[in-house]
């Protein structure tokens, strides 16, 4: 077990290094730099651009150094000082911008994972047990509909419909009066009355994949002799299924969290933009388009770190719940 964790940790460090490199490469890909985009933005707003200011900024930010030098400075800053560099656009250290938003991202995505499981489990079990029945088809369509509706469309529809039918705007995570209040029951309620929409969009987008895997695993497991053994014990059918094949089929499902995360992060970017959620998503989108490279790089890297850690956690979780891995058999 220790060896297993150690191996995973080493792999993780390597992956993280690769993520940091790719993150930096991605933000360098587009032509031009922050200042060219900055000028374009000002002009687009009808503001006048002063070339002298641009020149001063260019010096201030140290553009023009070779790529490798910039990367080296950046990565050593992160490792030695926890300094992710300066955001050009916000004129603030990157670290002051991202942590709160990342926490929101993690909160939302965590909730989404939970809800995803809550939806996918019953449907997945049902469609496996009732394979090729009308109920199977209806449940499958219900489980897949979230995948099929583009996230942005679903988010927009939910927002519009709740305005039309409930007279509320559900954007953001809080109503104005609770925005900066302390946690209390009403605030929690307010949070839930906003968060349901993004969580639902994110969760339903992922249920399909979970249902699919659960169904395949369960169909496999249902044929295994130990299920017959359980039946032969005289257990009621539902108990047989829940206690044995479902329990076994859940194991590989745990490890799917790891690779559900990247997709979840991606869709949360889009959903956050539509529903105005203070997550890392809109910040990332904006920084990528404005070529605010240290900010974008930091977010891409931290999202990558999150997924890598998520994968690690799901691997450990799998080892923890599956004795076969825990005791190193196979």
């Amino acid at each position, binding site marked *: 077990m220790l060896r297993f964790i150690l191996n995973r940790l080493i792999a993780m460090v390597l992956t993280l290094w690769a*993520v940091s490199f790719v993150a930096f490469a991605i933000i360098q890909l587009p*032509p031009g730099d922050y200042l060219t985009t900055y000028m374009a933005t000002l002009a687009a707003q009808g503001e006048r651009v002063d070339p002298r200011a641009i020149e001063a900024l260019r010096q201030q930010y140290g553009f023009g150094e070779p790529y490798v030098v910039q990367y080296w400075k950046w990565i050593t800053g992160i490792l030695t000082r926890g300094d992710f560099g300066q955001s050009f656009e916000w004129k603030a250290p990157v670290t002051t911008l991202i942590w709160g938003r990342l926490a929101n991202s993690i909160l939302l995505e965590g909730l989404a994972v939970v809800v995803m499981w809550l939806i996918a489990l019953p449907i997945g079990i049902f469609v496996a047990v009732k394979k090729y029945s009308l109920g199977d088809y209806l449940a499958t369509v219900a489980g897949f509909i979230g995948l099929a509706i583009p996230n942005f469309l679903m988010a927009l529809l939910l927002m519009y419909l709740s305005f039309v039918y409930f007279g509320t705007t559900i954007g953001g995570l809080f109503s104005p009066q609770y925005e900066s209040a302390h946690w209390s029951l009403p605030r929690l309620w307010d949070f839930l009355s906003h968060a349901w929409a993004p969580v639902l969009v994110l969760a339903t987008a992922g249920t399909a994949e979970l249902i699919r895997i659960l169904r395949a695993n369960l169909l496999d497991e249902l044929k295994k002799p130990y299920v017959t053994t359980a039946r032969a014990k005289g257990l009621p059918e539902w108990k047989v299924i829940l206690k044995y094949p479902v329990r076994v089929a859940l194991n590989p499902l745990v490890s799917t969290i790891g690779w559900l995360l990247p997709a979840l992060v991606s869709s949360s970017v889009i959903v956050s933009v539509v529903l105005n959620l203070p997550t890392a998503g809109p910040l990332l*989108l904006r920084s990528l388009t404005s070529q605010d490279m240290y900010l974008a790089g930091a977010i891409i890297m931290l999202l990558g770190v999150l997924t890598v850690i998520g994968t690690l956690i799901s691997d450990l979780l799998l080892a923890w719940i599956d004795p076969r891995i825990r005791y190193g058999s196979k």
Partner: protein
Amino acid sequence: MAVETLTPAEAMAPAKPQRESQMRLMWRRFRQHQLAVISLWIVVAFYLVAAFAEFLAPSDPGAYSARYTYAPPQGINFFVQGEDGGWSFQPHVNGYRSEVDQAAMRRTFVIDPEEIIPVQFFAPAEPYRLAGIIPMSVKLMGVENARDPFYVLGADRLGRDLLSRLIHGTRISLSIGLAGVGLSLFFGIVIGGFAGYYGGWFDSAVMRVIEFIRSLPTIPLWLGLAAAMPKDWNAVQTYFAITIILSLIGWTELARVVRGRFLSLRTEDFVTAAQLDGASDWRIITRHMVPSFTSHIIAAATLAIPGMILAETALSFLGLGLQAPIVSWGTLLQDAQNIRTLATAPWLLAPGVCVVVVILALNFFGDGLRDAADPHGR
């Protein structure tokens, strides 16, 4: 109460004496999944629409009309009531009565049941080449006088026919999915195949790379790559670039499947036998291994198409994918992405409905294929 429905042959005799052909067997299993069968026909129908877009679309997707901006759907009626009160068969649409409301900055339309615009089937059209080959000069439907409004599904903000745009958009969206998957498949089979067949360090390297790519959130990758695309590329170049971007990420899943099959097949008897016979690697791969997992590959590929289609719409939403004047479901949905459309022109969400239907159908079809190809799960 057991769960799996086995055919009696399977229940009784584990070793099947008479071997049905793989494909027939697969088709039989596939047919059990009725949802998959229905989905197959839906998918086929959509691809036919894509192939015969010029024939099916009532008008030019770019043709605009100032008089009919945001005109609501007319719908087609098939019978008209004559003066004697009797009904006769005459496919038609009704005209509009419209006025401009300057304060609100819009046109308001009322369908005018009095004005009957007959619809012709196999109406004459500008000459075109069907599916790029057959020269034709008729289209499925049209109105006699091209100046008459013909908006079965309504019009967009420039008074362009949504139905025609939808039909032409189908072509781009579905083909981008297909092309993207084709490209992914190529990468996936080559890379995954080598990894699975030769194993060793190459295999582990490929697997690490795949794991790595899969651990990256796709949006920043798309954004970065799409932003890096040379900006002076024209529509066709952009289209292909988008396809490549999508497949650069999409190949990993297919490579994993291919590798997995290769690994398990490599140790099977018939491959070993062929190796002992001194067959070359190439021959073994192409003659023995590939045919035995084609079905799995088809299933995996089918399941990859919806992701591509969704990705295309998402990229368009972010303003990085295809852009107008290219007509795709993504660009059409981009137009529908605002409160105004939801509130006053909900018919412009029709591309969204198409996306949903096609994504569902492709998923069920792919699942059915996979069930049929691999009765024992993954």
